[in-house]
C-alpha cells in the first residue's frame, strides 16, 4: 500500500465499486478500502462466493451485484479488503487499520461510500437475547446460509422486512408472523406521493408480489401493530403487541426487527462535513451536490451514506462521484465529465421516483422513535435508560450533546451509533422541540476503536 493516492474510496458496496471502476479507467492511482473480506457491501454481501442455490433464494436484485463486482475486479484500482478506517479529517488524512496495524495515508480526493445501517429503534425488551435486527439475520443467511431453526417473528417497517420474509419463506423458515408497525394513517399521508411512485412501478409490483406470495403461503401479516414488547426471563420467550385494539402475544425464541435504514454518517462527521436533518428520511445526512461534493474540498459522498436511495441509485452515484473526481484531478474537462455522466444523472433521478412515497409510507411513528417506557435501555454500551435521558432534559440539559455529557449515553465503544438518533428523538419529545434542533452527537474520533498498542506504533521515533 502506498502512503498517498490520487483517489481513495472508502466502502466496497455498489457506490464504491462503481466509483472505482469508473475512476481507475483513466489511469489514476486509486485505492478502495473496505471492512468486508469481499466486494459487495451489505446489499451484495458475499456476492462472489455465495453458492448458486442460495443466491437464487436471495432474489434477482441481489444477483445484480455479480456484474458490479466483476467489473471492479477487472479495473486497476488497488483493493484493500478487511481494512478499517478509524480516522478522517479535512486535510484528507485517513487513519486505517489493516492486518492489525495502524497507519496514516493521504489522498487528493476521497469518496466516502460507506453505505447505510439499520435504524436502531429501542423498544421495551429490545436488548434481550433473541431479539436482533433483521440485517443481522440477512448477513447470517448471505454469508453462511444460516437460518432460524425454530421459526421467527419479524416486526417493523420498510421494504427489507418484506424481502427478508420472502427470502425466509423460500429457505423453508417458519415465519410465525410479520408485524408491520407502520401506522395505518401513513397510507393516507403517502397517497399524494403515489402518482410519482408509479413511474417506478417495478418496485411497487415487486413489493406487491412479495406480499401476495407471503399471503398465499399463509404467513400472518398484521398491519398497524403498536406497543411492541419483547418479553422473557433470560431470553426472549414472548412477543407482545397491540393489534386492532387488542393485546396479543406470540411465543417465539427469535424476533427480528427492522425499522428502515439510515446513512452511516460517522466518517463524514469525523471529516467535518456539514450534515442536515432529513425530515422525510428521519435521519441526519451529509449535505452534498449532485456529484457528491460535500462542503469539504476533496471529500465526496456517494450511495446510501449520502442519503437513502437504494442500491441501484448508489451505483449511479458512485459513477458520478468517479467522474467528478477525475474532473477535480484535471483528467476530464467539465464538458467531458457532463457528457460521460449524462445517463447516470438521468437514471439516478429516475431511481428517486419511488422514494418520497416509500418514505411517507414507511415513516416511523414518534411513539416508537421516542419511547415513553422509561425502563427501556437506550444506550447499550453505557446502560442509560430512556428515563435517565428524560430526567436529564428536565434538569436543563436541552440538547443531545448536553444529555450525552451528563448521562454518558453515546460514550461507549459504539460511539453512539446505536443511540444517537433515539436520544435526539427522546430529547426533542421531552423538551417539545424539533428533532432537527437537537443536534447529533458531536462525532469523536477514532471512528472505530484502535488499541493503545496500535496507536503507540504510529509514534515511530520511540516505538515500543
Amino acid at each position, binding site marked *: 500500500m502506498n502512503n498517498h493516492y490520487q483517489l481513495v474510496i472508502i466502502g466496497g458496496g455498489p457506490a464504491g465499486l462503481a466509483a472505482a471502476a469508473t475512476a481507475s479507467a483513466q489511469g489514476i492511482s486509486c485505492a478502495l478500502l473496505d471492512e468486508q473480506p469481499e466486494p459487495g457491501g451489505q446489499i451484495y454481501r458475499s456476492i462472489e462466493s455465495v453458492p448458486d442455490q442460495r443466491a437464487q433464494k436471495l432474489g434477482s436484485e441481489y444477483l445484480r451485484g455479480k456484474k458490479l463486482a466483476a467489473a471492479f475486479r477487472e479495473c486497476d484500482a488497488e483493493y484493500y479488503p478487511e481494512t478499517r478506517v478509524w480516522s478522517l479529517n479535512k486535510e484528507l488524512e485517513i487513519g486505517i487499520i489493516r492486518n492489525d496495524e495502524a497507519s496514516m495515508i493521504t489522498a487528493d480526493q476521497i469518496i466516502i461510500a460507506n453505505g447505510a445501517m439499520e435504524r436502531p429503534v429501542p423498544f421495551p425488551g429490545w436488548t434481550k437475547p433473541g431479539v436482533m435486527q433483521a440485517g443481522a439475520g440477512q448477513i447470517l443467511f448471505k454469508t453462511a446460509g444460516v437460518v432460524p431453526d425454530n421459526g421467527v417473528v419479524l416486526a417493523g417497517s420498510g421494504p427489507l422486512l418484506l424481502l427478508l420474509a420472502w427470502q425466509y419463506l423460500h429457505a423453508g423458515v417458519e415465519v410465525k408472523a410479520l408485524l408491520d408497525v407502520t401506522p395505518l394513517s401513513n397510507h393516507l399521508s403517502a397517497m399524494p406521493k403515489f402518482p410519482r411512485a408509479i413511474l417506478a412501478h417495478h418496485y411497487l409490483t415487486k413489493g406487491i408480489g412479495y406480499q401476495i406470495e407471503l399471503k398465499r403461503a399463509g404467513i400472518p401479516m398484521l398491519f398497524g401493530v403498536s406497543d411492541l414488547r419483547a418479553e422473557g426471563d433470560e431470553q426472549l420467550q414472548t412477543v407482545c403487541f397491540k393489534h386492532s385494539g387488542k393485546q396479543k402475544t406470540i411465543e417465539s425464541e427469535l424476533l427480528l426487527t427492522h425499522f428502515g435504514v439510515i446513512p452511516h454518517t460517522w466518517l463524514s462527521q469525523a471529516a467535518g462535513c456539514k450534515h442536515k436533518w432529513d425530515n422525510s428520511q428521519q435521519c441526519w445526512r451529509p449535505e452534498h451536490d449532485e456529484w457528491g461534493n460535500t462542503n469539504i474540498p476533496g471529500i465526496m459522498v456517494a450511495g446510501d451514506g449520502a442519503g437513502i436511495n437504494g442500491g441501484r441509485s448508489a451505483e449511479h452515484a458512485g459513477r458520478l462521484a468517479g467522474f467528478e473526481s477525475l474532473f477535480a484531478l484535471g483528467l476530464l474537462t467539465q464538458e467531458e465529465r457532463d457528457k460521460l455522466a449524462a445517463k447516470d444523472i438521468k437514471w439516478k433521478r429516475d431511481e428517486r421516483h419511488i422514494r418520497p412515497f416509500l418514505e411517507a409510507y414507511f415513516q416511523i411513528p414518534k411513539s416508537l422513535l421516542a419511547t415513553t417506557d422509561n425502563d427501556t435501555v437506550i444506550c447499550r454500551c453505557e446502560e442509560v435508560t430512556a428515563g435517565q435521558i428524560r430526567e436529564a432534559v428536565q434538569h436543563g440539559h436541552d440538547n443531545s450533546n448536553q444529555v450525552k455529557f451528563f448521562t454518558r449515553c453515546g460514550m*461507549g465503544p459504539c460511539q453512539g451509533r446505536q443511540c444517537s438518533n433515539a436520544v435526539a428523538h427522546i430529547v426533542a419529545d421531552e423538551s417539545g422541540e424539533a428533532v432537527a434542533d437537537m443536534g447529533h452527537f458531536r462525532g*469523536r*474520533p477514532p471512528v472505530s476503536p484502535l488499541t493503545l498498542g496500535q*496507536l503507540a506504533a504510529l509514534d515511530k521515533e520511540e516505538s515500543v
Partner: protein
Amino acid sequence: MTTDVLIIGGGLMGSSTALQLAMRGYQCTIIEKASPGRHSSGVSAGGLRQLNRDPAEIPLTVESAKMWRDIESLLDSDCDARFPGQLRVAENKADMEKLEQRAALVRSLGYHHEEIIDKKELYQLVPALGPGCVGGLICREDGYGRPYHTVTAFRRKAESLGVKYQTGTEVYSIRKDGDDWQLRTSQGMFSSSILVNCAGAWANQVSTMLDEPVPLTPKALALMVTERLPHFVDPVMGAASRKLSFKQMQNGSLIIGGALIAKLDFEKEKTEIDWLQMAKSANTVVSFFPQLKDVRIVRAWGGIESFMPDNIPVLSASQTYSNAYHAFGFSAHGFQLSPVVGKVMSELIIDGKSSIPLDSFHISRFNK
C-alpha cells in the same frame, strides 16, 4: 434587565462565583454564549490535584481540597468525586532527586500534602505498574471528579438560590454608564453594578473590552478514553519527567491525557485530534503499563482552555474600571480550584479583600 452582578461565562468559575455571591444575598445573572460547561469546564479530565502546583497556588489548592472533601454540603451533589491520591512516578535517580527537591520546597512553605514514597510503597500502591520505577511523589488526598456533573451541580445549586443563566447569549459590547455596566448582547441589553469576567478561553475578548488586554492563549487540550477494564489502578498516575496523566474512572474506563494539544480553529471553535501526539502519549502509557497494549481507545476529544504565559490564573479586580473583576486563565488546572475560586472572588467583590492573598494572580502582572 438589571441585576446586582453580571458574570460573563457559565462554566465552573462563573457558576462557583455566582453561587457564593448568591449565598451572600447578591442577585446574579450569568451571560453564557453557548451552554454551561460547553468547553473546558465540562470536558476536562476532572483532576482533583494539589500535587505539583505552582507555589503561588498552594494556599488556594489546599483550601479548595478542604471544600472538595465536603462538596456535597456545598452543592447537594458529590460530583462523583473520589480521593485515591495522585502520584508522580520516578523512573530513575535523576527523577527521584527532582521529586525530593519538590517535596522539600513544599515543606519549606509549611505544607505537608506532598510526600515521597519509596519503590516498595510505590509497587504496593500500584502493583500493575511495569518494572523499573524507583519511587514517587504522592498527594494522598488528591483524586478526581466528573467535570460535567460538577458544572451541573454548581449550576443547579446556584439556580436554586436565584442565579439566572442567560444561555446562548453572546456579549457584543460593554459600556460603563455612570455607576452601571451596560452589556449589549445577542439577546438584548443587560445592566448591573458589578461585572465579573469568567469567560475562559474567551476572557481576553472581555478584558479587551475593559481596556486591559491580557496575553492569553486559547489552546485545545486533548484527552482519550478507553473501553472499560476490570479495576487495576487506584491513584491518578503521572510521571516525573514524561508527559503522562491517566486515571481509571469509576466505570472502569481509562482517561489518558497529560498536556496533549489538539489542533484548534478558535474562530470556528473546532478542535481536531493530532494523532501523532496521541501516539506519543499511548507510547508512554504502554511503556509504564505494557499489559494495556491491547486495550481499545474508544474516544478522543479536545476542550478549549485559556493559558497564561506563567500558567497561573488571573484572580483580580480590574485595574481600569471599578466594580469589574476577573477570574480566568486557569491554564489546564482549574477544575480542582473551582470551589475556592467562587469563595475568594465573592470575598474580593463583597469585602474588597479575600481571606487568601491573591497578589500573585493580579492582572497587573502583565503590565509592561
